[in-house]
């Protein structure tokens, strides 16, 4: 990381942490959900850099959420860290298996197949009484390494949990982007054939990206489930995936931080629009998406900096 970036990231994190003590609960709750969803967006960015757009990322989001609800309920686990870990890993595990199929697809076919897979989960959940059917399930109140806060304290504790997880994820994904496997995303998007003939397995590179992004989405879903206290099949519906894609396009693939900023902006505008002009929410959403695609093809992040490949490591 370039020094300037490091300072910016550090101060953003500090500001977010300080905000946790100062801002009213409703803003903290909103930010908690936004950052949890930001993890999903970060996962979509991982794929998007390689040219893949998934319309079914809600599959992993939902998996993460339901995993938390189920092991909390039946496994008696209450520790938030453990719950989130299991949520993320179960999504990653599923994606590892599905990945053998999915990694063969590109472009619109990739988008559609991932959509179909998420709709399978949706269909299953809706029809399964023991998983709460359309009503979904409630999620237990978590503890934090033995600490068991309630009400406002719980809200703040969850916020910090999300903050820590997001910061860790951001650091790791940032490191991944700078590694060979991460940086090859652009060559893969540009010309798979060449990558293959240079000696690297494209399907393995892509499979890795799928698992990483599912891990992130599952973690995000787990955190969102804890924050909301409830999961339902709509977490897996295609419109949920659509919203994540929307934020991703808005944020652009340029930087890791864009995922969280984009998600925060999205949640804020949504809660504002829901309160003020509920009938125009989707018009607003659609127009912004349209304008972004037409005029800022690299996402809003591109206003700040354009995507450069390994820019920071510019050779002497």
């Amino acid at each position: 990381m370039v020094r300037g970036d490091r300072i910016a990231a550090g101060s953003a994190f500090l500001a977010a942490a300080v905000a946790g003590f100062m801002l009213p609960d409703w803003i903290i709750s909103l930010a908690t959900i936004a950052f949890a969803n930001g993890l999903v967006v970060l996962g979509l960015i991982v794929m998007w850099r390689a040219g893949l757009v998934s319309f079914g990322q809600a599959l992993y989001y939902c998996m993460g959420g339901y995993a938390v609800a189920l092991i909390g309920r039946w496994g008696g686990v209450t520790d938030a860290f453990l719950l989130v870990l299991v949520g993320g890993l179960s999504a990653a595990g599923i994606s590892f298996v599905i990945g053998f199929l999915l990694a063969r697809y590109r472009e619109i076919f990739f988008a559609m197949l991932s959509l179909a897979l998420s709709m399978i989960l949706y269909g299953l959940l809706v029809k399964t009484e023991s998983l709460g059917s359309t009503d979904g399930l409630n999620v237990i109140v978590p503890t934090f390494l033995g600490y068991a806060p309630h009400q406002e304290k719980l809200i703040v504790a969850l916020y910090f949990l999300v903050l820590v997880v997001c910061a860790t994820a951001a650091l790791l994904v940032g490191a991944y982007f700078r590694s060979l496997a991460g940086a090859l995303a652009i060559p893969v998007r540009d010309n798979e054939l060449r990558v293959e003939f240079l000696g690297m397995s494209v399907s393995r590179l892509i499979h890795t990206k799928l698992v990483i992004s599912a891990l992130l989405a599952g973690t995000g879903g787990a955190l969102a489930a804890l924050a909301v206290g409830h999961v339902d099949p709509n977490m897996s519906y295609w419109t949920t995936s659509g919203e994540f894609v929307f934020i991703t396009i808005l944020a652009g693939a340029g930087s890791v931080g864009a995922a969280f900023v984009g998600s925060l902006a999205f949640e804020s505008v949504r809660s504002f629009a829901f309160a003020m002009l509920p009938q125009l929410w989707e018009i607003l959403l659609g127009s912004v998406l349209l304008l972004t695609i037409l005029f800022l093809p690299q996402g809003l992040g591109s206003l700040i900096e354009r995507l450069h490949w390994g820019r920071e490591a510019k050779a002497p």
Partner: protein
Amino acid sequence: MLNAFAVLIDGLVYAAYLFIVAIGLTLIFGVMKILNVAHGSFFTFGAYGAASAVGIYFNRGLPEAGGYLLMVVLAMALGLVLGLILERGIMRWVYGRDEVVMALVTYAAFLILEDVVILIWGPGSYAAYQPLLSAGNIEIGELILSNYDLGLIAVAAMLAAACYWGLKFTRYGRLLTAVIFDRETAAAFGINVRVVYTVTFVIGAMLGALGGAIMAPKIAVTLGIGVEVIVLAFAVVAIGGMGSIEGAFAGALIVGICRAATVHLFPQVELFVIYAVMALVLMIRPYGLFVRAQPRKI
């Protein structure tokens, strides 16, 4: 025996419905390589338009046959207007960009149109049951079938025949085939690809709206119908092979029969059987039943 017959009839009715909504989608993809999410909006507009108009019409006590005509004509008109607005106003600016980007643009249009529906028709739901009632029922053995359902099968069959004939034997159809086969060469031979695009998009939109209008009497016309239809139509088209008319036909039949069978035999899995079939087909034939992958020559 009765069961098998019921499954068959139910399956055919459902397949007819799926084919009608899928054909516009596959046409647009085949010619323009656009996965048109706004197809769900065309469907919604057709359904709302037909439902509200039919309600008014039948309440006046006008002749019943005219009601059917009204539904169809109104839907086509709505499709025409919407299709033109979208194609001329938005789509043409993104031709040539990534297929995924074009799909996202139609997604944006879809989001906008969802709210436009509320602005025009309000948040309440509409029931256009009159055409269904006035069509009446028919008894075959112990089964009671709705004439409207049987009519649906006939309409789908006619559409399929018309598409087949249109593509094979009309001038425009041959132009389309040429563009589908090879866009650059078609353009080089003096085919005006722009016009072909506009016409195709509008026809696709009209078919989508028509699907909505025809389905309106059978469903509660309410918010969110477009959302469901669009993923169903995607599944059908993906099974058959995107852009293939025969594919849409086969996909609709497969999905229709599979769904009818599960509804009768294992109602619990009804919703996801469609997507499971789709995932299964794609595993074996990645580009659908009627489309072959083109190996890349180097």
